[in-house]
């Protein structure tokens, strides 16, 4: 009688497996329980045994092929009829007859019938739980907490994963899944930029807008994007096109208690340093205070994430999908560097640039960053511009 062996349900959540190695071939004789094939799931590699002895008639699937749970792997011509007509005493005796109730009148565990039922349904072992109810009774909450905790875990604080946090999380996960990220890190000598900015900031009346490095970085980025337009693009896989944007909307990643939110400065190429500075302040304050408008969160083409006071040497920022590039700016700090054979102290900053490798290759990314850094290292044109438009 021909018997079809299907890929069984190997474990929780496993829907398919990869055929690693066939242990038998068509025409082979097999015994009952003899392993036929090795299957790899994302949990483990298992051997699938034959339920019957007989001859292998057909094997389905090549090594390396992915097969679904429930699909036929092997067809075996069995020795004996598949339906067992012989009456034998059953193989495995089952434990404990109904006469021994599990609880008993003085069970060590204090739990009411309702709680015991809940524990049964959730697969929780009551003796493992410390009851928080009166006289040490196990409450329904105790059971639910134990069910949620990892095996062998202790006390746990459960924070709901929902709302903005969940939204951000889902967005980040999608970005990572869709785009193969790579990060390129370089350092920039911004001593000149620092000097000039301090000069300017010192000469400004206090009521004037707070001027950080960000407006300069934005300006440099826009110039860089004009020269390397591929970094100002988005990949539409469905339409199979790379959409290169001819407008420059720079997102400024802003930290809020709920998570990182990215307000967007529209048409950054058309704004002056001071206008940028003003808009940065407005948008980031509004974002932190939860007042930011929806349209200010949309339409970005490139994102800058400033790691500010925390510093760090290097980061691997996650793309603000579907943008193909994101620039991480670390802390500006004084470092000892070698210039013309001498050790000098310069204001240095690290820049971490993450890119979607489907659209941007390493060389292009590196060249963009090089160009960006050269602009920051010789900031004269920015200040000239500022001088013209204050």
């Amino acid at each position: 009688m021909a018997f079809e062996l299907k890929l069984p349900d190997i474990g929780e959540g496993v829907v398919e497996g990869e055929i690693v190695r066939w242990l038998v071939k068509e025409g082979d004789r097999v015994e009952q329980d003899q392993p036929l094939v090795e299957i790899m799931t994302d949990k483990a590699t298992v051997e699938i045994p034959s339920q019957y002895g007989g001859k292998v008639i057909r094997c389905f699937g090549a090594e390396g092929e992915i097969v679904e749970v429930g699909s036929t792997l092997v067809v075996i011509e069995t020795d004996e009829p598949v339906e067992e007509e012989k009456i034998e005493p059953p193989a495995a005796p089952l434990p404990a007859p109904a006469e021994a109730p599990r609880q008993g009148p003085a069970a060590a565990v204090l739990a009411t019938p309702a709680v015991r039922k809940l524990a049964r349904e959730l697969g929780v072992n009551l003796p493992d739980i410390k009851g928080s109810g009166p006289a040490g009774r196990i409450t329904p909450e105790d059971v639910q907490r134990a069910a949620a905790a990892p095996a062998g875990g202790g006390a746990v604080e459960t924070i709901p994963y929902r709302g903005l946090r969940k939204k951000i999380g889902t967005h980040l996960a999608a970005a990572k899944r869709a785009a193969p990220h790579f990060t390129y890190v370089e350092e920039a000598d911004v001593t000149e930029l620092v000097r000039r900015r301090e000069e300017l900031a010192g000469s400004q009346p206090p009521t004037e807008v707070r001027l950080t490095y960000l407006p300069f970085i934005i300006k440099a980025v826009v110039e860089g994007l004009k020269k390397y337009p591929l970094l100002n693009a988005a990949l539409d896989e469905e339409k199979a096109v790379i959409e290169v944007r001819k407008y420059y909307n720079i997102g400024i990643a802003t930290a809020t208690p709920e998570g990182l939110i990215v307000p967007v400065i529209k048409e950054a190429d058309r704004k002056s340093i001071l206008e940028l500075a003003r808009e940065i302040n407005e948008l980031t304050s509004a974002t932190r205070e939860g007042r930011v408008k929806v349209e200010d969160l949309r339409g970005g083409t490139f994102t800058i994430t400033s790691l500010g006071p925390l510093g760090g040497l290097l980061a691997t920022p996650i793309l603000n999908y579907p943008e193909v590039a994101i620039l991480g700016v670390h802390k500006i700090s004084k470092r000892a560097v070698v210039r013309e054979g001498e050790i000098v102290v310069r204001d240095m900053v690290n820049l971490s640039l993450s890119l979607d490798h489907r659209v941007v290759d390493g060389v292009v990314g590196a060249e963009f960053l090089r160009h960006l850094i050269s602009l920051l290292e010789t900031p004269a044109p920015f200040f000239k511009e500022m001088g013209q438009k204050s």
Partner: protein
Amino acid sequence: MTARRVEVLVIGAGPGGYAAAIRLGRLGKKVTLVDKEFVGGVCLNAGCIPSKALITAAKTFEKMRQAGSMGIHAESVSVDLERMQEWKQGIVERLSRGIRQLCKHAGVELILGHASFAGERKLKIASRDGEETLEAENVLIATGSRAGEIPGFSFDGKLIISSTEALELKRVPSQMVVIGGGYIGMELGMMYSKLGARVTLVEMLDQLLPGFPEDIVQVITRRLKKQGIDYHVSARARGWEKCGEGVRVQVETPQGELSLPAELVLLTVGRRPNLQGLQLEKTGLAVDERGFLPVNSRLQTQVPGIYAIGDAVGNPMLAHKSSKEAEVAAEVIAGKRSELDYAAIPAVVFTDPEIATVGLSEKEAAERGFEVLIGRFPFAASGRAMTTLETEGFVKIVADKSTRRVLGVHIVGPEASDLISEGALALEMGAHLEDIAHTIHPHPTLSESLMEAAQQALGEAVHVMNS
């Protein structure tokens, strides 16, 4: 011929079988319920229900004759056993109809026929419409039990009868010997005594109601004496012979041989599981040395897909144990995570006064290593009991001295059968003495006695002396 396929076949429509069938139907399974005799099993037709009906009637008769102290004069009170049987039968029929209705609503197919195995999941059903073969995905054996016999005594339906015939008598016997002083013999013996029969009880072990605590049984034996019921313990019935219209029973006692005259002999020596006739060997299953079919706490036998519950799987042979197992088995068959998980099964005896116990007795608790704390309240101190003329008996609560956790509740006295559920709940909830003692029980009731007994254990009692 291809056999008809059914999802679940339940063999036996007693309190276990029909409960499982209805529960399964409500859980979405298609059930076929087979019984060879009637719907409701022994419980409904020849046990629990009929016996309680007759016992209540007999007690009412007795109460009316004793009501003179209340100022009620019932001059000519008499018993018409035939009419009583009709009334009882009416109740049985009403309940039986009810079960059929419930089965119908749950989509359960009812077959009156005899089921036997032809293979692991193949069964032959022989009914008056012929024979049918069914293939069942799941089988639930709930075939119950039948009255047991002892050497020298076989049922003939007339002179040597079981509880089944005893509940169908149309005439109160003038004299009867009851062999077997367990709860069935005691209930029926006391009942017929109230109806006018001269009853003698014969028990093989050294106390009536073996297994029940001595102090509880003492209350009953005091009443037996008052009612003029003779009894012999450590007594073995050896045989019988016809004597005129009736019989004489030979009984061996420590004091010597007795020859007891009687119109008939009621044999209540225990019940045996009904598993022969099922052809279990076709499935590979076998019964254990006591005749029960072994199952685990999910009511599964050693053959996947075959389940068993009730009297067929073990003691205690009680309808509510069966119903509980039916519930769990139904859930397991329906794929839910269910298991037998109870703190205790209450046991009730409808003697007069009634007995009801749940959990550990004083002796059992001590055997398990507990240092016990006892609370006791006699019904003689209960105002309510006095107003019902039933002041014999007591409530006893057994607790663990160190934690004051309730281990057992034992009641002998009026309405014990209805008072015990508080004890069962206390055990399931893991209650401590304080939980019962500090719950307000209404006054004036019999249930207050449980509160008082708990208080007595704690030294807080008002209406009795604290220990």
